[in-house]
């Protein structure tokens, strides 16, 4: 059955046809990705484009929009990019800007061809197919065996001019050798109307440890669709924290695989949404080896007509005995029109495991509110205080001080904007 092409789908494919000769790197993977994108399309673009993995998030609005090339004509406003680390890679509209960056040995902004790693699955994930087809640039970070690379910031800035709509598809590859360490801070922000569709592949060697903080503050009119793949060798640790605040439509999809024994994965997130925002946090943790542990806490606060989605799956393969998996999702609905959709899944094929998940949905506790009110705290600050306390519990996973301060400040900004 052929599904009619939407304007957006046709636009992306058209751009690929027009630019394929000049796109950097080997043409093979791009052609294959284009075929996959033609077949998969944008989930929700039409009735023929429905997929279970996209049950709660439709890309119809994206499919109906048209996006031009990736280069903006607007001025770059670096004031929007917080400086969080000495080593900083800045991407503007998906392209590395050496003039704005401070790289370090092994940490490249890579103006070279984007590197397609072994983890991404363009044949299965439509947005990864789109990224592979059109990727032009991306960070390449390599930390050698035993090295501690300290803190690295990757800043994404999109700046579409009025009346312009741009799309960028950066492709990042992060490799940590045996015993290597890195704290990676990603900030994403911008102005105007754009699509930011990054794909990151993260490979962690034995005993490697990556702490990955992601602050998503995209523009009100932006689409943010990020896909991350992480693969962990024995005893490696991957700790990710995502804060979703911006974009009209955001989806963060993380696939983490514990390929070696005794690995540890934490995929924590917080979302604070209002207006007509839609944010989707989708994660798959796959335990393929024994004695792995995974932890997840996802907290969402929704006001206005916002819609929050959390889909989290823990997969335990046969033979991944002594796996310890835990997942918790909690949502606060602050208004009548807000909505939360949660789907925590367990898929277990080994018997000697400990896996659990919990999900709760509710409003602010009236008793807590009453307590604060009875002590003279006015309604609005009391509510703000409770919401902050709710989010703080998930933020406590972030131990890096500068990063925590940046996240706190971002939440305060978002809450003020919400209240205004």
């Amino acid at each position: 059955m052929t599904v009619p092409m939407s304007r957006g789908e046709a636009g992306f494919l058209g751009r690929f046809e027009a630019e394929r000769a000049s796109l950097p790197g080997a043409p093979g993977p791009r052609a294959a990705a284009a075929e996959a994108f033609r077949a998969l399309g944008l989930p929700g673009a039409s009735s023929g484009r429905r997929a279970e993995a996209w049950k709660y998030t439709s890309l119809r609005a994206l499919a109906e929009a048209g996006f031009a090339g990736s280069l903006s004509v607007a001025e770059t406003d670096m004031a929007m990019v917080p400086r969080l680390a000495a080593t900083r890679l800045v991407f503007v509209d998906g392209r590395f800007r050496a003039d704005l960056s401070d790289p370090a040995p092994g940490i490249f902004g890579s103006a070279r061809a984007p590197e397609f790693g072994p983890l991404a699955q363009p044949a299965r994930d439509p947005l990864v197919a789109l990224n592979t087809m059109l990727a032009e640039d991306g960070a390449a970070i390599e930390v050698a065996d035993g090295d501690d690379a300290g803190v690295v910031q990757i800043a994404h800035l999109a700046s579409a001019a009025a009346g312009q709509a741009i799309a960028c598809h950066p492709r990042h590859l992060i490799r940590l050798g045996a015993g290597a360490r890195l704290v990676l801070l990603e900030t994403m922000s911008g102005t105007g109307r754009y699509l930011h569709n990054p794909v990151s592949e993260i490979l962690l060697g034995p005993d490697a440890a990556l702490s990955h903080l992601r602050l998503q503050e995209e523009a009100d009119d932006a689409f943010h669709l990020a896909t991350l793949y992480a693969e962990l060798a024995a005893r490696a640790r991957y700790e990710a924290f995502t804060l979703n605040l911006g974009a009209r439509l955001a989806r963060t999809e993380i696939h983490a695989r514990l390929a070696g024994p005794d690995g540890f994965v934490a995929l924590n997130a917080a979302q604070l949404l209002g207006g007509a925002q839609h944010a989707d946090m989708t994660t798959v943790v796959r335990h393929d080896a024994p004695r792995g542990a995974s932890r997840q806490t996802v907290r969402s606060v929704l006001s206005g007509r916002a819609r929050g989605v959390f889909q989290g799956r823990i997969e335990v393969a046969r033979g991944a005995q002594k796996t310890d998996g835990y997942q918790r999702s909690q949502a606060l609905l602050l208004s009548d029109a807000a909505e939360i959709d949660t789907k925590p899944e367990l898929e277990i094929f080994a018997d000697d495991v400990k896996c659990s998940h919990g999900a709760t949905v509710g409003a602010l506790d009236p008793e807590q509110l009453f307590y604060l009110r009875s002590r003279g705290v006015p309604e609005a600050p009391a509510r703000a205080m409770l919401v902050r306390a709710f989010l703080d519990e998930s933020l406590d996973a972030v131990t890096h001080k500068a990063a925590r301060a940046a996240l706190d400040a971002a939440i305060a900004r978002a809450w003020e904007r919400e209240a205004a």
Partner: protein
Amino acid sequence: MPAVAETLETVESLARSGYKFGFETTIDMDVAPKGLTEDTIRLISARKGEPAWLLDWRFAAFAAWRKMEEPRWARVHHTPIDYQDIHYYAAPKAKAGPASLDEVDPELLATYEKLGIPLKERAILAGVQGANVAVDAVFDSVSVATTFRATLAKSGVIFCPISEAVREHPDLVRQYLGTVVPVADNFFSALNSAVFTDGSFVYIPPGVRCPMELSTYFRINARNTGQFERTLIIADAGAQVSYLEGCTAPQRDENQLHAAVVELIALDDAKIKYSTVQNWYPGDAEGRGGIYNFVTKRGLCRGARSRISWTQVETGSAITWKYPSCVLEGDGSVGEFYSVAMTNHMQQADTGTKMIHIGRDTRSTIVSKGISAGKSDNTYRGLVRIGPRASGARNHTQCDSLLIGDRCGAHTVPYIESRNPSAKVEHEATTSKISEDQMFYCRARGLSQEDAVGLIVNGFCKEVLKELPMEFAVEAQKLLAVSLEGSVG
């Protein structure tokens, strides 16, 4: 005396006293040719002496079904079903069963022995020819039937085969049939609507508390009603009924596909409790044979403060695809789902519930216990949806999985959708195995390995088993132990 025991005794005594009339019953040998066309439906409708509106209703379902595709989202795998290779109308007992108990599979008899089923009963369950007919005849005999009917009729309760209800109470059937599960609800319900041959009909008048627990076990012609059963239960305002479905011993059934539909309707302040113990033939240890059980069960709490409670113990069938659900429309209505699903060998179960909260202050509770052993796969799949009007709605869900052995799978797929800030939804799920400590404790006290597993599994399921009517609970406990045989050690 519990009603079940009473019946058994009646049956036994009748059999002892040499009740022979049954043998003269003319066996209806009607079998429709294989395949499903409008003619098949016309034939079924004609055999049942149905009015034109019902035939039209069936045709509408058939037209919808033809446009539908078999659902593929459940975590079950099977060879494709050829819907044109099925007899859609075969009168009961058309097939010759074994002539005596000696010809029955000894493995099956051993199972009955363990369940403590009386000899006579074993013969019936195994499908021994004479016994079958005799007991059916006993059930059919005017005396037994009228005993129950008289008691029920005195309180105004209608309890009869649905085909009879279509003739005797057409207004009631027409008013409610298909209102909870519309004909085109899903692939299997559409198929059922087109070709259903029989099932139960229950109507409890306003304010009446049904004087006995109703059961397909009692009902005339309840057995082998075929693959496409249709049950409709209506509890009018303030009425109460408890309905038991199923049998607790494995039945040899040649049918491969079962696609039943059950609709429950509770009006203001009404209560319906629906309990199932399902132990259809699960296939052998290698996964050959067994029933495909694709069932649509849904209850509508239409009235304020109404309550519908589903309790199920699912141990049989090669494939179970079943989601007994509650639509909580009336303000203050309550939905409950208590489930034990056990799979062993090559069985696959994908089962759970949907709680759709529409009215204010609606409440629902879900307790699901999944046990997987052997090479089986066991999935809980559930939906809790809180609509924008459902202020003050509450849901609590508890899903626990127990894995026995390292070749099986246990999966939990809950969907939680909330669109009302004052609603409160809580979901918890755990997966574990029987701990070495628990086993050691039991073994040290002299229990065999199998008994210890049985005991621990029963403890794991306790929250659900206590919801079952007493007679069922006892048999369900034994059943769990029997179903686990060969899964440990």
